[in-house]
């Protein structure tokens, strides 16, 4: 059986030293090994940005796509081969700005893939502009007078979009993050995991220390019940989104694949592509 080392490859990440993304990479590698899959059974699809490079840093099939489009690509991969484990990942700009429509609809659609967002509240690769996750008043190159727009609330969006799995982690807590990604992979449906992954170069406000000070672990909240959506929404709003753990999980709702009429149990990629003459004639007959 594969260990987390089998999910490592020889490519050296080009992230800045201290970047939160290293931990996300490690957590994905550990989670994949822990759930017992082999590297060739995993496909990692990523967007564009610092975080997008992750598809090339994990020993698995990797697809580094276009900005904001990791989710549609990942859903296509899964639809073609339902036996694959598919993880989509990218940054907060990728998922909540240019790709926001895909995020909401992927959540609604509930195809059985895992989406890990590396949320650093800043545009790093383009050298420091505001992100939809930047706090109001946050000063960046593109908001010299402070960000005017309020920060987007991905957990609330996910919960109100009909998510069946919502979790949030923090880069320094690899143990918790690994457990969240494991739970996400094992969840039968779309799992949305937002990860606070600090940018040490361009975000001097939302630092490791800042998160440590402000984050609450849901496991520390007495009586928290992740199957209660109303409680989840209330808690997320109450704590201004600064919580970690499994926020909400619905284990009853079936995934998209299980609901599509006639969708083959066998991966589409393995189906015989030819129509038999009888099948063809049957189709032609309708036009005669």
């Amino acid at each position, binding site marked *: 059986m594969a260990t987390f080392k089998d999910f490592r490859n020889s490519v050296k990440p080009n992230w800045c030293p201290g970047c939160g993304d290293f931990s996300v990479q490690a957590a994905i590698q550990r989670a994949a090994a822990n759930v017992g899959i082999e590297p060739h059974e995993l496909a990692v699809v990523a967007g564009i940005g610092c975080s997008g490079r992750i598809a090339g840093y994990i*020993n698995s099939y*990797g*697809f580094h796509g276009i900005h904001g489009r990791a989710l549609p690509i990942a*859903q296509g991969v899964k639809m073609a081969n339902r036996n*694959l484990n598919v993880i989509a990942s990218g940054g907060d700009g990728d998922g909540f700005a240019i790709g926001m429509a895909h995020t909401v609809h992927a959540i609604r659609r509930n195809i059985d893939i895992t989406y890990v967002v590396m949320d650093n509240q800043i545009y790093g690769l383009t050298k420091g502009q505001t992100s939809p996750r930047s706090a109001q008043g946050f000063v960046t190159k593109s908001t010299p007078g402070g960000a005017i727009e309020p920060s987007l609330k991905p957990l609330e969006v996910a919960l109100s979009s009909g998510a069946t799995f919502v979790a949030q982690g923090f880069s320094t807590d690899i143990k918790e993050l690994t457990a969240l990604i494991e739970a996400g992979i094992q969840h039968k449906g779309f799992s949305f995991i937002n990860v606070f992954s600090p940018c040490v170069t361009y975000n001097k406000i939302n630092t490791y220390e800042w998160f440590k000070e402000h984050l609450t672990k849901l496991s520390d909240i007495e009586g928290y019940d992740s199957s209660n959506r109303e409680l989840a929404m209330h808690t997320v709003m109450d704590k201004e989104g600064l919580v970690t753990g499994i926020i909400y999980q619905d284990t009853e709702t079936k995934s998209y694949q299980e609901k599509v009429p006639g969708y083959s149990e066998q991966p589409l990629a393995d189906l015989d592509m030819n129509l038999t003459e009888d099948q063809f004639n049957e189709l032609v007959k309708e036009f005669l």
Partner: protein
Amino acid sequence: MLHQLSWKVGGQQGEGIESTGEMFSMAMNRLGYHLYGYRHFSSRIKGGHTNNKITVRPTKVRAIADDLDILVAFDQETIEVNYKELTENSIILADAKFNPEKPEDSKAPLYIVPFTEIATELGTSLMKNMVAIGATAALLNLKTPVFQSVVEEIFGRKGEEVVRKNMEAIQKGYDAMSDLLGDRVGEWELAPADGKRRMYMIGNDAVALGALAAGARFMSAYPITPASEIMEYLIAKLPKLGGAVIQTEDEIAAATMAIGANFGGARSFTASAGPGLSLMMEAIGLSGMTEQPLVIVDTQRGGPSTGLPTKQEQSDLMAMLYGTHGEIPKVVIAPSTLEEAFFDTIQAFNIAEELQLPVILMTDLQLSLGKQTTDPFDYSKIEIRRGKIVDDVLEAPENKDYFKRYENTEDGISPRVFPGTENGIHHVTGVEHDETGKPNEAPKNREVQMDKRFRKLEKLNFDTPVYVNAPNEEADVLLVGFNSTRGTIEEVQERLTTEGLKVNHAHVRLLFPFPSQEMAPLVANAKKVIVVENNKTSQLANIMKMNIGGHDKTYSITKYDGTPFLPRELTNKVKELLD
């Protein structure tokens, strides 16, 4: 006895105009007639006028008829909008209900038939369409039993009584019309047909059927006129074949999802029209750069922006050839008949996988939605080719090296392996990359990979890039077109040939890479070249000049009012240019 009949039914949208046309066509198809339909279906005038014009012949019909023989009107607007197409040998049948009036300058007589009244007497005014069909049958001297099987097919599920009532409505319409006609009975009788059954379908049906025959088992698409029927057909049929369709949030998702599914190993595609094509530009570049197959169907309609969404145009050509930033190899195919639409769709999937690049299959609104008859497609000609896919068991790589997904092979085509395959792990990226898919910006590597990608086009295997009918070694004129103008140009060629002109015809089916080798001699052997296209800026003519020259003798006939060329109109325009 007529050798061609042109019949039109019109009224308000939602009044059953479409189904009246459908019922009439089905019956004519079953008698073995050839059909060519044209739908006018937007509210050009307040109130939502819609009409369905069907040209019927015992022999092959390739274009919309110039004139109209029979106009069936359910409102005055239908008469006002369409009477100019009528001649002195035509006839208007109008429902008594709206007190129809004949326009002063109408050449055709008006016959008032109580369609609604007869239907209401039989139980429901809904059957007025059946009464109109009966009246049409009387004009054509058709016996009403020819409608029996069609009525049974459409109303059978509702029970015998409904079938009987509808047949009765047809008979009553027939009788009423026969009484009115008096000694004019038989004037519109059509020469008999051969009784052979042909497929009667729209281009979108042919494309959708082609996709199934090609082995496409996944489609991601966003609804749009005039492409939606392709998606709807697959939604109906794919469950039986194990496949699936996802209606995405937009065309960006549609195209990128199809890329993901192709990467995953399933033949996948999307279909759209101009506005969707614009949104797919980044995906087209991604497909080209990552060498993932992608088939996009673009059913052209009137642009730009929302433009004329329900009207004919061929103005996306340049966008298809040159859209997306940077440079990628791609293939653009333009079928011009139903049969070509079917087989070219299969070719599109084969090429996309063989060459690992985006293939755009373009149609236009008239080809996509105009319903036509065609001989059944030949099953034995269906061929699936997937190119270089690694089926063998792969050896474990050293040091977890990636499988060389972008190996710099002689023909530029690298082997593919699908996710899930042991020892085939690799990385694909839209960033410039080396043979293993690792990002690489080195100048030498850039050249190697760019050249490799473009080298693939030399292996393009496309059957019949140009449809040619060139009976003249030295022609007075070469007529050139693409997509749905095919039949009209054929008619024009025939008419001008009877007048003694030497006319050749080339219909371009492969737009990119441009078939210069096939086109150059045709251009060289013609005194004049006239390029016929439904756009403002002579896009095809410019493509031709760019690729094969002939600037001094190339002329354009363009039309961008949203309607297709009619044979007489085009004949006259060609003549003007030849004078």
